């Protein structure tokens, strides 16, 4: 049987609860707007619990780190390896594309040039260079089967390269304008002074037979004169880098650097038409 509650006890509970509520309310009202530092008991509590919290967080973080750094990353090394391979493949591909782009630019330039020159031209690729220090020749992949003959001009979009000196059915040897055995009849574009451009071993050419009173200055462009029957008239050959008339004698000492960067040349155009002088 349930014990019957007395009315006095009930009243006590109500009074106590009400009193507690009032105290809490007073505390709450009194704390609003004042500084919020820990009280002495709060401080004790915090000091006691915080180390435990700290330990707990340390363990929790340790577990989380272990999960993320090891267990979760088991497949990462494998992924890393495959990504490295992918980077290598893409790099190689990128290199191929870059090379193709450069070749495209070069060939487009050559094609544009081919369209502007009103002569039958045949493109050829350089397959080999002269093995010696003293001579400047190159082998191209076109020969007599393609219509090439001895004494045909080899040019590029930048200017004159040289002339064919030996021809086999599929290949030909080109004597470069920088070879000492090469001589090209030229005109200085600005002053129309004539001269003969001869190769020198150092990769530059000398412009010979230009009189000491003739007007030639560094920076002048030298073009082919068309005389000699090998090179068409008006093609750029080189640029004057030195012109001195101090040497005793009749002629100036002139150095010309070729317009074409001969050491880097990869394709040339061969002029298939020979002039009547050459045929004679």
């Amino acid at each position, binding site marked *: 049987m349930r014990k019957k509650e007395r009315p006095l006890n009930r009243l006590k509970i109500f009074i106590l609860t009400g009193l507690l509520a009032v105290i809490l309310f007073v505390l709450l009202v009194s704390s609003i707007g004042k500084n919020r530092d820990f009280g002495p008991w709060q401080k004790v509590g915090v000091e006691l619990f915080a180390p435990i919290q700290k330990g707990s967080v340390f363990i929790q973080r340790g577990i989380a780190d272990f999960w993320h750094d090891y267990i979760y990353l088991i497949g990462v090394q494998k992924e890393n390896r495959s990504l490295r391979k992918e980077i290598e493949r893409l790099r190689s591909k990128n290199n191929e594309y870059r090379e193709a782009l450069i070749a495209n630019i070069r060939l487009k330039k050559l094609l544009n040039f081919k369209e502007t020159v009103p002569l039958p031209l045949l493109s050829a690729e350089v397959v080999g260079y002269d*093995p*010696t*220090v*003293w*001579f400047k020749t190159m*082998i191209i992949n076109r020969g007599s089967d393609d219509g090439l003959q001895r004494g045909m001009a080899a040019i590029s979009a930048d200017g004159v390269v040289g002339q064919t000196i*030996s021809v086999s059915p599929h290949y030909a040897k080109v004597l470069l304008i920088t070879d000492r055995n090469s001589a090209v009849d030229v005109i200085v574009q600005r002053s129309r002074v004539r001269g003969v451009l001869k190769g020198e*071993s150092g990769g530059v050419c000398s412009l010979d037979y230009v009189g000491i009173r003739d007007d030639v200055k560094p920076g002048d462009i030298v073009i082919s004169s068309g005389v000699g029957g090998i090179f068409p008239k008006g093609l750029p050959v080189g640029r004057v880098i030195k012109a001195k008339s101090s040497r005793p004698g009749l002629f100036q000492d002139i150095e010309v650097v070729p317009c074409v960067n001969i050491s880097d040349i990869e394709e040339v155009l061969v002029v298939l038409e020979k002039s009547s002088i050459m045929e004679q």
Partner: protein
Amino acid sequence: MFFLFLLGCVLLILETTLFYHLPLWKLKIDGLLLLIIYVSLYLNGIQSGLLIFSLGILVDTFAGSALGMHVLVYALLFLLVKVISRNLVIKNIYYQMATIFSVSFLANLGLLVLDLVFMDGVIRWYQIGMVFLQSLLTSLLSPIFFICYDYFDRLFGLREAHEVSR
């Protein structure tokens, strides 16, 4: 001997393609000249002479504009090296390098002079400097090339065959 000719062909291909792009200023690795000197130093007989002649023609085909220049220079080089090797003992690597430098200098100078004579040109001072530097490079590289040639030589037993025939 045929393998040496093949080796010469390989060297020529390398020199006209790969070695051409090496950043050695204006100088070139002349493994073929070193092969000629090696053959002249260590091998004997008519076959060696024929080998040098054929290699000379091959070089003339790919280099320069006058056929016969390299053949002549290589033939003279062959005789010169034979004379030197019969009168001097060239066993030490330093003597070997000095000999190679001298003959390489003479060969390069010979080529230069022949070309200038044919073309009625003038020798410039920097060309002599280039001959010197080219010969120096050739002699400095000679130990490496000679080790390779020696290896092939032993592999095919050429030198022994010649020593027996002598």
